[in-house]
């Protein structure tokens, strides 16, 4: 049997992921706290974007609530791990991680139900409303979340009895979690589920006629995508060590949407590129002084004008051109075969 491009592409995704992980493990040795903070943030936001990429990029469901899920995860983690943690410092973070994922998973299921009834901009609106309500809860329910004053002194997790107060150690911890979550996502996307999600996006009616349970896959896409937001939140809280409602506002959900689109929706590596663009590039541009947001916005515009499919779209366009050429030759050949 011949090698199929799609299957080999998935393998290339895996290879890039693993090679990238090894490089990242060693690369930041010379970085100071700030650099480590920025690349840790990059990975954390990549996880959140990966979730949104599943919901939006693969399954085609427009969600404007990813930052709210990030917030649910972050606050859950803060509550579980703060002040020595509920079950001692060693196990509090793993518990928080699991609970954050579970809560956001079920919130995603609930939010997914409207997705069964309404499509398109109404779905965006329903998720937008959810995000607004969550933001207001974070801000107003001071007894629980610390309200506008925020939640401070969130501890870093401990691994085998030692707390990851060292920024490099914490970065590597984030890296390991990111790789594990990416592997799980990679596996899922190449499994029959991944194909079903794509089918859901491309043609739900046809998908239904092939026995694909639209209801189950829609809810799953929403729930798993949301859970990745929650997982990212479980890392965000100890990374910043302080949370308040601001990073979970509507505008933050829009930035995540931008991240996924700029990176390349529906591509496995898109969220990593997008998050580098959305969260690392502004840090680099900050050196250009007061105009950096202007420059950033102009870059987004130019990039989208050049390649509306996102950064990965450039690569994909070249591959597609090559494939089209090959396909054309094959078509010519096939005509001869059929007519013969």
């Amino acid at each position: 049997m011949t090698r199929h491009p799609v299957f080999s592409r998935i393998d290339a995704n895996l290879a890039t992921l693993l090679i990238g992980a090894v490089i990242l493990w060693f690369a930041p040795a010379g970085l100071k706290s700030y650099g480590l903070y920025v690349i840790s943030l990059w990975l954390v936001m990549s996880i959140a974007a990966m979730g949104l990429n599943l919901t939006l990029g693969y399954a085609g469901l427009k969600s404007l609530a990813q930052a709210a899920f990030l917030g649910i995860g972050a606050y859950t983690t803060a509550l579980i791990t703060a002040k020595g943690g509920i079950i001692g410092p060693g196990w509090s973070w793993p518990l928080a991680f699991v609970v954050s994922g579970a809560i956001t998973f079920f919130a995603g299921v609930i939010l997914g139900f409207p997705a069964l009834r309404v499509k398109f901009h109404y779905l965006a609106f329903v998720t937008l409303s959810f995000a607004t309500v969550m933001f207001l809860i974070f801000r107003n329910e001071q007894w629980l979340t610390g309200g506008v004053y925020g939640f401070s002194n969130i501890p870093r997790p401990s691994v085998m009895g030692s707390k990851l107060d060292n920024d490099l150690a914490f970065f590597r911890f984030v890296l390991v979690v990111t790789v594990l979550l990416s592997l799980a996502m990679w596996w899922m996307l190449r499994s029959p589920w991944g194909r079903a999600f794509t089918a859901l996006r491309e043609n739900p009616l046809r998908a239904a006629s092939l026995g694909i349970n639209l209801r189950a896959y829609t809810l799953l896409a929403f729930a798993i995508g949301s859970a990745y937001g929650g997982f990212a939140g479980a890392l965000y809280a100890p990374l910043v060590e302080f949370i308040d409602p601001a990073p979970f506002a509507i505008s933050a959900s829009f930035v995540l949407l931008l991240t996924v689109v700029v990176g390349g929706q529906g591509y496995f590596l898109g969220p990593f590129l997008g998050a580098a663009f959305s969260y690392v590039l502004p840090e680099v541009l900050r050196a250009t002084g007061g105009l950096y947001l202007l420059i950033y916005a102009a870059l987004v515009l130019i990039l989208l004008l050049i390649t509306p499919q996102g950064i990965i779209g450039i690569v994909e366009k070249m591959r597609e051109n090559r494939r089209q050429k090959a396909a054309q030759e094959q078509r010519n050949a096939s005509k001869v075969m059929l007519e013969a």
Partner: protein
Amino acid sequence: MNAHVNLPASGPVLKVDGLKKHFGGIKAVDGVSFEVFEGEILGIIGPNGCGKSTLFNCILGQLQPTEGAVTLDGEAITGLFPAELNRRGVSRTFQLLQVFPNLTVRENLILAGQEHQGSMLSRLLGPKDAGLTAEAEKMIGFFNLGHLADSKAGGLSYGQQKLLDAAMAFMAGPRLVLLDEPAGGVNLTMLASLKERLEAINKEQGATFVVIEHNMDFVMSLCSRVVVMAEGKVLAIGTPAEIRANPAVIEAYLGH
């Protein structure tokens, strides 16, 4: 090919009984009844707007019938969702092209069969092809798509997509296949090969077909029996020879 008219002793695979679908005052389907038996190819013909497509959509759960019943092997399936029907062995092809353009031909075929394999969980944890590669390769070979197996379906020609669409309908080893204008827009050479493939797969899989078609020659040579519809009602049912000789049919087709 239309020789095995001798009907089997067992009950019908599909039974449509007094099916009605009204849109406000318009009676698109108005009391249609017929039966389809094991292994046969039943054609449904009729002039445009006679209610063929609405009938199909009612049988397939895309529309809720106003009245009447549909049974599959004696079990009521009236108004079941398309996905549920498919999992019970009813599959279909589409009048307009409905393949997944960004998946390859092989992936389209695997997708068409995967939901019939195992459980949700086993589909997540099991192999990525859901154990269907061999089956897909067989179908690819059968429909002469071998050289295109790794091309994206969106890049195929119209006729090739039509073949793929049909191949997808057969992936899960269906009990009953409803084909919506399989010959529409397909050129003559391709048409012969399509007809031959359909006949072969009908024999090989033992599946039962219902075909909606405009192309009379295609229907008359492919089908063992034909239902003629007009204005939402059944005008006649019979073998192609009987239909050709039926004055009401001639009237409906040629009388104006």
